[in-house]
Structure formats: structure tokens, C-alpha cells
């Protein structure tokens, strides 16, 4: 989240797209209700009328996977309206704080010219040469700008050209949203473009889990920048995370392409630390750009010092050589493809249940059979731990050795979780765990202690120094406070905890396990454990002394865009920060530099994490285009109405065994998956809880009355959903909340189902992921769980 949960209450308009907060974020809905009580509007855009839709002021349907067409249409509406009614928009924000005025390379071409592609496409490799996606530079090497936004090569004009095709009628034809409702959404949300008004976009997996999911999020970012909604209270683009600590796990590098604090992972060609730092540290020639990532060397060296301690010295590049380098794809689908192919031989499954939650799960369960060993660390015997005795499998044929390690529940251990709003909150242990169950920290400690013993005893072990030189001094039971302090980091010359990342150095005299968390545990104590309920400056619910928020307790990031060039808040009712003549008051500002018009010599642009200092309307960093363009999901019932480029041109397509693709002649119905509030993720925590099972006892599939009539399916009866990859049998829930879409004049049906079920636990049922495909997003590789093709029949 750019903002945080409580801040939603400050919003004037909340657009829930690709998310269903009433269902998946029930506690957060309290903040939404609070905003509504103040008169804010809630818009729900969803293929199906949900519990969120039931509380919304406007419900607008859209076919799964067409968000870019939808938001592209809203962007066009805003751009047209800006011309007609410029005073309704904050044009100062657009020109001064975003890259809308930047001049782009004259060779750049977009989908309007190239039938859905951007310049530089290499069809053989499904990738782009991005050299034309660059800015024109002046003699100092600073991007040229046209502050009138009129130059045909400026980003703003390219944006207009890109979305000129996304008329309400076209958007409606693609998405199935009725034109009138679509326009109501446009008008309502565009009203937040006025200086002083705020709108938030709340998204979740409904947006990300597509082959062009990242571009869907980019479309939200562009819309919010045009409406001056980033950095302000009640604004932002807010990822509603699906678990209490997903934010924390990504901050601390759960994903394969990052190190803690979103430092990039070294790749094969980064042979030395210097080469690595040269590649990953962005540069700017503009003295007004803070270019915060220029500090990368300080953060990287401090990370290496945290990991390798005294073994990290300038002479050995602070242990950089110990780090694994990768140039491969280690995302979920590729890992399971590699297991299926017998390349990966062992798997540790830590608090996750791929035999339920993995895409094309028939293949992923089969892949587990090819492992030599599998360790499942969980509270229950999950479907993954029990895959060898699943229905239809013959245990005698499966040679995988399975270990089930009992973990402890969150209430049975101490530590921190970081919520969607980037708040790190300390939790205490309130009960002893049962039996031999152990906290994850202790499990990994015991494992590592043993591994180090083995490496110690074998002088020929590969990468021996990388294992033995690690700082590993946790004893037999890990103290979470020690770990939290290590994450914060130390001044190694004094032994004191670092006060903030501003003092981290690249000379080996400081350590920090995650620069973003530097300031979370200082000599003043554990900031995450703070419980002061003072609302804080301007009474906008920042709660600055409740827990701790990265970075440096800044509750709303990019908040220097919440003020005008003189430092006065756009929104005087809900200011985030303000310049009082000598300094900033309010939230922790994004850098303490004076406002742009107050001190042009010493100011910096507000988007400090971008090398140029301006927010990206034009985003050349992604692999599949600097502007979002509508493409159909991998499996779609229709042809792309906007161009001859059917799918995102850059996502990876696997073509191994069991990677079947369905076609609309056989599978004409759109299918999607989701969660219900009564169950949790892959289901073990709730399908083993009788009270939850009572509420949602069985797997079900929701479908429209029209489709049910066509197929002779009755409400409460049983049906079968089939895709190219598998079948699900479940109870039919026939409902007026799903309606057939009118897509380009054709009636297209969609069905949907929760994905919580599996074959172990109190409540069992078919897993929705028996149906989903093994393809993922072009940029992140998150699987396309949310849009694929199926057929349904009466069971």
C-alpha cells in the first residue's frame, strides 16, 4: 500500500477492482464503512455481485481479465474531460510531479501504430528491445520536458494516443460492463481529480493473477497520477494483501528476484560486487532528483555485514562472492516444472500447501511424486504432506520420503508481522505450543546448526565458506528480539543499534539485515511494539506511535506530492504534510528538502524512488510495454477487439507435458477463482475448524440463472466444471449475482468458485486449481488463476 488501512477512512471515493474486501479483508471493511459514513462513494467492479458489491454505491460488472480495457477506458474519459474541464483536475501535479511532460525517443511507437505491440518486439524470443522506450536527454543528460504537454513526443500526448481507442463503447464491448454503468464509474471516480479530493484504488489478487497482471496495476497507477491521488490522504493504490504478513515476507525477500529491502539479486554476469553495484544502482544527472536508490551500495554492504559479520571485509568484497548468483527463472511455475522434470529433487514446504494452491494442480501433485524428499512444516497434515495417499494415487508407486514437522500457530510464538500498510507490529506469545511443535525460527535454526556441523566436518563441501562464515549465533533457541535487532542493524564501530538508514555506510562500518527496517529497533527500544493510540498530526489517523512503519515511520509514501509547489496541502481538510516556513510538519516527509517553489536551488522532486524524481505515467521498466495495453487472457472466449495481438506478447509459455491449453470451441465459458470469508487460503486453518466448516461446508460453484437453465443445472444440485486440465465436481449455486456478459455482441457466460478445498481435513472437496493453467504474468510470473476457459455440465 502507498497508504495504510486506517487512511481509507479519509477517502472520498473507493474503487474496489480485482478485490473483494468484504469477503477477503473483513476487518478492513470497518475503515471503508467509516469513509462511507463521511459520504464517500464505494465502487465495486467485479465479474460477480459480491458481498462488497452489496455495500457499494455503484456495482459494475466486468469479464475476468479485462481490467486494462476497463481502466484504459477510464483513463480516456479523464484525458478527454481534462481538456473539456481543466479546472476539475490538478494539472500542476500532472506536469510537475509526473513524467507526463517528458519527451520520448522519436522512434518510440505504440500499439495504436503497431497492431497491439510496442516498438522493439522480438517475436522469436517473446521479448522487447527497449531502446526506443527511452527519454530524450538534454546536454546535461537530464530528460527533456515540455511543460505545455503539447509536444507530440511527450508522454502525455503518447498517453492520449494510446487510450484514444479505449472509447466507452469499446471498453464495454471488451469488458461486458454496460456503457451507462461504466460512464457512471468514470464520472464518480474522475471527480476525485480535483485538487483537494481523494480517491483510492483497492486491488488484490483479482488484478495481479493474470498474464498481464502487472500492467493492470500500472493502469491504476497511471489513473491515480492523472487524478493527483498518489501521496494524499485517502488516495493511493493499495494492494490489499491476502495474509497478515505477506508484506513482511516480500520486504524480507520471499521472492526469488530480490534480496531484503528490494535490493536486486546478483545475476551470473555480476562477477564482482563492483559490477553488481554498477548494474543495479540507478544514476541521475539531475541535481533536483534525490534518486534514493543511489544509496544501494550502502544498503548492500550493510546487508552483507549483517550476514557475514567479521568475515565480510573490504578485501573479500564483504562476502559478496558467497552469494548465489542467478539468471534463471525461479518462480512458482518454473520450480514445479523443474520438479516434474526431475531436475529439483527436494522441497521444503513452509506454511504453504501447493497441492491445493498451485496452478494446474494435477501436474504439481504429480511433480511431487518425482521428488526424493519433501519436508512439510505446518499445523496440520496438509494435502501436500499427504499427496502420496491422495485419491487416485498408489502409495506403493511413490518413492518420495515425506517429513511432517509440526509448526506453531501465530499465537504460540513471539515476533513481528508487517501488514498491507507497511506497519510492522510486534506480537506476543499467549499460549505454549502443543507437543513437539516449534516456532519457524527454531526449526530453521536447528536445521542450519546441523548443516553447519556437516559442512564443518567436510573440507571438500561446495560453497563451504558461504555456509560456515555466516553469522549464526542464535544458540539452541532463537530470541526474536535478536533477529529484529539484526534486521535493524548496528553501528559496528560503537556496537549501538542504528537510528535510521540515513547513516548506513558502504565501508563495512555498519550492518543492516534490511535497510527498509533500519529504525524499527533502536537504542530507544522496539518500535514495532509501540501501542500509543494518539492519532497524530492533522488528526488523519496516522497513529505515528502505534507500531512502526517502513520507511522511517512514514505512513503515507510520496507524501511530498500531497502539497503544492509552495508546500501547502492540496487538501486542507486532510493534510498529510505542510511546510511551515522552516520545515515540514505532519507525517514523516519523503525527504526534508524545501518545497519546489520555496527554494528551487535546494529542493528535490517528490518521487524520490524514481531515478528522475517523477512518477511514471510512462513506465519503461516493465518487460511488456511502457503503457498498459489490453490483451486477452491466455485462454479467452473471444479475439482481442483492439488489435491482432491476442495475448500479452512477453509472458513465458511452458509447453511441457500436462500444460494443456483449452480452446473456446470446446470450453466456451470464462471461469475464475476466489476466496470466501469463512475459509482461509488453502483451507487447513479453517477446514479443520468445525465452526467454519458449519458456515461453508462444501465446495461450490457459482453460476448464472441463464447458464443453469441452458445446462439443466438446479440450485443446490451437483455440477461438473471441466477445463483442458481437469475436472471439479461441486454443488451448484445458481444466482442472479452472476449475469451473462454481452461481449462484442455475443453472450458470454462466466462461472466462479472458491479454491479452498482439498482432500484432507474435516471438510474435503475438489480443488479449484485442478482447472487452472500453468501460465503466469509477464513481469512477476504470478499464475493466471483468475481467467481461464471451462465448460459446465450437470453431474
Amino acid at each position: 500500500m502507498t497508504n495504510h488501512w486506517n487512511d481509507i477512512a479519509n477517502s472520498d471515493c473507493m474503487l474496489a477492482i480485482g478485490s473483494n474486501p468484504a469477503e477477503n479483508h473483513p476487518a478492513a471493511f470497518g475503515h471503508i464503512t467509516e469513509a462511507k459514513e463521511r459520504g464517500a462513494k464505494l465502487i465495486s467492479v467485479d465479474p460477480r455481485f459480491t458481498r462488497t458489491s452489496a455495500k457499494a454505491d455503484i456495482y459494475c460488472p466486468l469479464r475476468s481479465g479485462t481490467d486494462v480495457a476497463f481502466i484504459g477506458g477510464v483513463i480516456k474519459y479523464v484525458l478527454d474531460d481534462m481538456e473539456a474541464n481543466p479546472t476539475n483536475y490538478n494539472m500542476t501535479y500532472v506536469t510537475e510531479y509526473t513524467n507526463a511532460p517528458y519527451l520520448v525517443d522519436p522512434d518510440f511507437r505504440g500499439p495504436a501504430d503497431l497492431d497491439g505491440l510496442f516498438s522493439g518486439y522480438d517475436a522469436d524470443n517473446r521479448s522487447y528491445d527497449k531502446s526506443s522506450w527511452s527519454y530524450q536527454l538534454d546536454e546535461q543528460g537530464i530528460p527533456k520536458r515540455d511543460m505545455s504537454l503539447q509536444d507530440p513526443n511527450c508522454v502525455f500526448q503518447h498517453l492520449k494516443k494510446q487510450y484514444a481507442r479505449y472509447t466507452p463503447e469499446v471498453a464495454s464491448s471488451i469488458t461486458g460492463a454496460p456503457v451507462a454503468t461504466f460512464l457512471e464509474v468514470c464520472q464518480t471516480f474522475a471527480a476525485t481529480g480535483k485538487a483537494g479530493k481523494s480517491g483510492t484504488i483497492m486491488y488484490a489478487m483479482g488484478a495481479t493473477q493474470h498474464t498481464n497482471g502487472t500492467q493492470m496495476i500500472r493502469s491504476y497507477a497511471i489513473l491515480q497520477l492523472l487524478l493527483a491521488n498518489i501521496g494524499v490522504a485517502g488516495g493511493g493504490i493499495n494492494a490489499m494483501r491476502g495474509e497478515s504478513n505477506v508484506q513482511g515476507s516480500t520486504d524480507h525477500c520471499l521472492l526469488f528476484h530480490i534480496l531484503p529491502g528490494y535490493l536486486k539479486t546478483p545475476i551470473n554476469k555480476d562477477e564482482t560486487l563492483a559490477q553488481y553495484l554498477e548494474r543495479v544502482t540507478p544514476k541521475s544527472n539531475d541535481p533536483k532528483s534525490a534518486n534514493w536508490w543511489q544509496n544501494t551500495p550502502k544498503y548492500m554492504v550493510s546487508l552483507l555485514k549483517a550476514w557475514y559479520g567479521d568475515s565480510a571485509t573490504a578485501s573479500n568484497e564483504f562476502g559478496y562472492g558467497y552469494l548465489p548468483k542467478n539468471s534463471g527463472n525461479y518462480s512458482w511455475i518454473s520450480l514445479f516444472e523443474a520438479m516434474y522434470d526431475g531436475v529439483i529433487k527436494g522441497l521444503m514446504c513452509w506454511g504453504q500447501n501447493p497441492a491445493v494452491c498451485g496452478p494446474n494442480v494435477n501436474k504439481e501433485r504429480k511433480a511431487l511424486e518425482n521428488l526424493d524428499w519433501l519436508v512439510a512444516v505446518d499445523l496440520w497434515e496438509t494435502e501436500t504432506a499427504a499427496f502420496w495417499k491422495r485419491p487416485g494415487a498408489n502409495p506403493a508407486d511413490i518413492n518420495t520420503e515425506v517429513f511432517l514437522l509440526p509448526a506453531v500457530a501465530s499465537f504460540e510464538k513471539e515476533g513481528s508481522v508487517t501488514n498491507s500498510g507497511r506497519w510492522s507490529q510486534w506480537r506476543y506469545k499467549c499460549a505454549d505450543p502443543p507437543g513437539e511443535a516449534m516456532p519457524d525460527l527454531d526449526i530453521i535454526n536447528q536445521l542450519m546448526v546441523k548443516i553447519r556441523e556437516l559442512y564443518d566436518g567436510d573440507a571438500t563441501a561446495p560453497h563451504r565458506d558461504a555456509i560456515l562464515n555466516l553469522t549464526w549465533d542464535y544458540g539452541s533457541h532463537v530470541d526474536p528480539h535478536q533477529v529484529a535487532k539484526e534486521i535493524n542493524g548496528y553501528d559496528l564501530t560503537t556496537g549501538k543499534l542504528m537510528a535510521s538508514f540515513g547513516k548506513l555506510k558502504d565501508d563495512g562500518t555498519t550492518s543492516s539485515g534490511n535497510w527498509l527496517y533500519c529504525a524499527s529497533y533502536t537504542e530507544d527500544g522496539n518500535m514495532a511494539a509501540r501501542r500509543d493510540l494518539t492519532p497524530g498530526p492533522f488528526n488523519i489517523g496516522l497513529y505515528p506511535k502505534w507500531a512502526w512503519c517502513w520507511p522511517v515511520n512514514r505512513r503515507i509514501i510520496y507524501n511530498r506530492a500531497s502539497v503544492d509547489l509552495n508546500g501547502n496541502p492540496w487538501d486542507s481538510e486532510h493534510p498529510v504534510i505542510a511546510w511551515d516556513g522552516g520545515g515540514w510538519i505532519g507525517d514523516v516527509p519523503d525527504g526534508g528538502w524545501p518545497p519546489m517553489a520555496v527554494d528551487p536551488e535546494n529542493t528535490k522532486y517528490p518521487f524520490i524512488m524514481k531515478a528522475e524524481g517523477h512518477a511514471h505515467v510512462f513506465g519503461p521498466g516493465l518487460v511488456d510495454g511502457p503503457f498498459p495495453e489490453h490483451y486477452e487472457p491466455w485462454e479467452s472466449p473471444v479475439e482481442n477487439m483492439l488489435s491482432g495481438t491476442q495475448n500479452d506478447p512477453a509472458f513465458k509459455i511452458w509447453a511441457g507435458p500436462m500444460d494443456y491449453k483449452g480452446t473456446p470451441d470446446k470450453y466456451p465459458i470464462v471461469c475464475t477463482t476466489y476466496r470466501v470469508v469463512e475459509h482461509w487460503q488453502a483451507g487447513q486453518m479453517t477446514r479443520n475448524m468445525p465452526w467454519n466448516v458449519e458456515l461453508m461446508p462444501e465446495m461450490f460453484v457459482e453460476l448464472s440463472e441463464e447458464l443453469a437453465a441452458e445446462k439443466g443445472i438446479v440450485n443446490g444440485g451437483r455440477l461438473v466444471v471441466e477445463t483442458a486440465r481437469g475436472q471439479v465436481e461441486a454443488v451448484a449455486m445458481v444466482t442472479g449475482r452472476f449475469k451473462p456478459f454481452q461481449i462484442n455482441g455475443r453472450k458470454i457466460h462466466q462461472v466462479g468458485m472458491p479454491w479452498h478445498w482439498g482432500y484432507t481435513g474435516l471438510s474435503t472437496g475438489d480443488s479449484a486449481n485442478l482447472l487452472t493453467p500453468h501460465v503466469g504474468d509477464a513481469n512477476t510470473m504470478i499464475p493466471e488463476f483468475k481467467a481461464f476457459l471451462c465448460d459446465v455440465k450437470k453431474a
Partner: protein
Amino acid sequence: MPKARLIDTSKCTACRGCQVACKQWNELPAEETKQLGTYENPPHLSGNTWIKVEFRERPGEWLFRAHTCMHCVDASCEKVCPTGAISHQGEVVLIDQKQCIGCGYCVLACPYNVPHRDEITGTARKCTFCIDRIGNGLEPACAKTCPPGAIKFGERADLIAMAEQRVQTLISDYGYPNANVYGADELGGLHTIYVLTERPSALGLPETPEVATSTVLAQWLSGVVTAGVLAALPFWLLFKRKKQIEAEQKSKVEGGVR
């Protein structure tokens, strides 16, 4: 001052946290249910389910209402209870499990279909208003857990004022012309007050509930007459006993919950 619970249907998201919180606090077992083509479950209140959210689909709408005991001033269940097991403890209508004989009169008499007979205990059971919590200064479990703040607990007069204000806003600002407060006057005043976005009948509530004493008694008595006078004798005795118990309790209980 009497306490009450306010359930605002315009804020309820049907997360059903109230259902689980009620079972957890009151240590009620889960029921074995089936997926019947609806989000709603269990199908109705029971001896082990004391609050449940009802889901109603209409074109373009999905209406939610948490259904539970109203704790009426003129409580039909209390009036028909032959053993005096049902009584008011202040604003709370309670079924004394030791005195209940499981005759089922209250089950039939309640205009809201709230008490249900439990097969295992053989008694009628229903929401206790978490009397063990509110008697100790806590709010009922359902109100404590409600994430969107749709269920609130407090002074009855305050809640009614809050409800009336909310209804005005729903009518003027949110396009709910039929919004209304339910429970301020019904049956002598309820202690579960609703903000309803629609007419009561559209949300499964009687528009003009009546105290069931006379009608239920008449029904039973007509059955009794058919069955014969001999059969009626024990019921007459039971009613006599009920009056005695009432008299005893009046002297014992004063003020009720504070």
C-alpha cells in the same frame, strides 16, 4: 438504564463473525451442515445456533440481516412458558435450563422464531445476550467481533437515537426510501434494535408483531379441548406453577443487568 444491541443492516457485510464469536464464547458445538446453494448456514437458528445471518437476493441487491433474540419487553416466550423457566433478568430474556421441560411452547410462541429445542439437552435454548459478559461490563460477543461495526451494544436510548439518525441519512443520502428503525416500540420495546434498509417484511421480520400469549394459548387450548379435559389438567397445573415462580422471582430480582 436498559442496555440494548443495535444491528445496522446497512453496514452488515455478512462476514458471519457474529455467528462464530457467539459459538466460541458460549461454547456451542458446530452443526453438521450441507451446501444447499446459498451462502447461508446453518439453515435456521437452533439449540446450538443463537445468531445467524440471513441472506436475501433481489435483483441488484443482496440483503443481510443477523437474526437473533430480540429480548422483547412483552416476551411471548416468557408469557407462554408453563414452568416459569423463561424470565426477564433486567432487559435480558433468559431460559433457565434447569427449569425448562422442553415443552416447546416458546418455540411456537415466539413471533421471531428464535428459541429452539435442543435434542440432546431436551430444553429450549437461545441467545442469552451474553449475560455473563454484559454483567461484567463487556459487550456481547457478537458486538465485540463485528468488523464493520454493524452490531453495537450500549444504552438503549442512545442506540435508538443513533438508529433514527442513521435512518434519516439512509433515506436522504443513500437512496433507501424504505429505511426504518425496528424495535423501538414493537412488543413493548425490543432490546435488539435494527436499522433496516427495507421494510421489515422484506428482511424476514413481522411488520406488526403481536404478543403470542393469547393466540398460542388459544391454539393449544383448542387442541387440548379436542384431546379432552383430562389432558388439559396437567397444563393448568403447570401454568399455576409458573405464576408462583414468577412471584418468587419478582421478589428476588431487582433492577437486572446494570
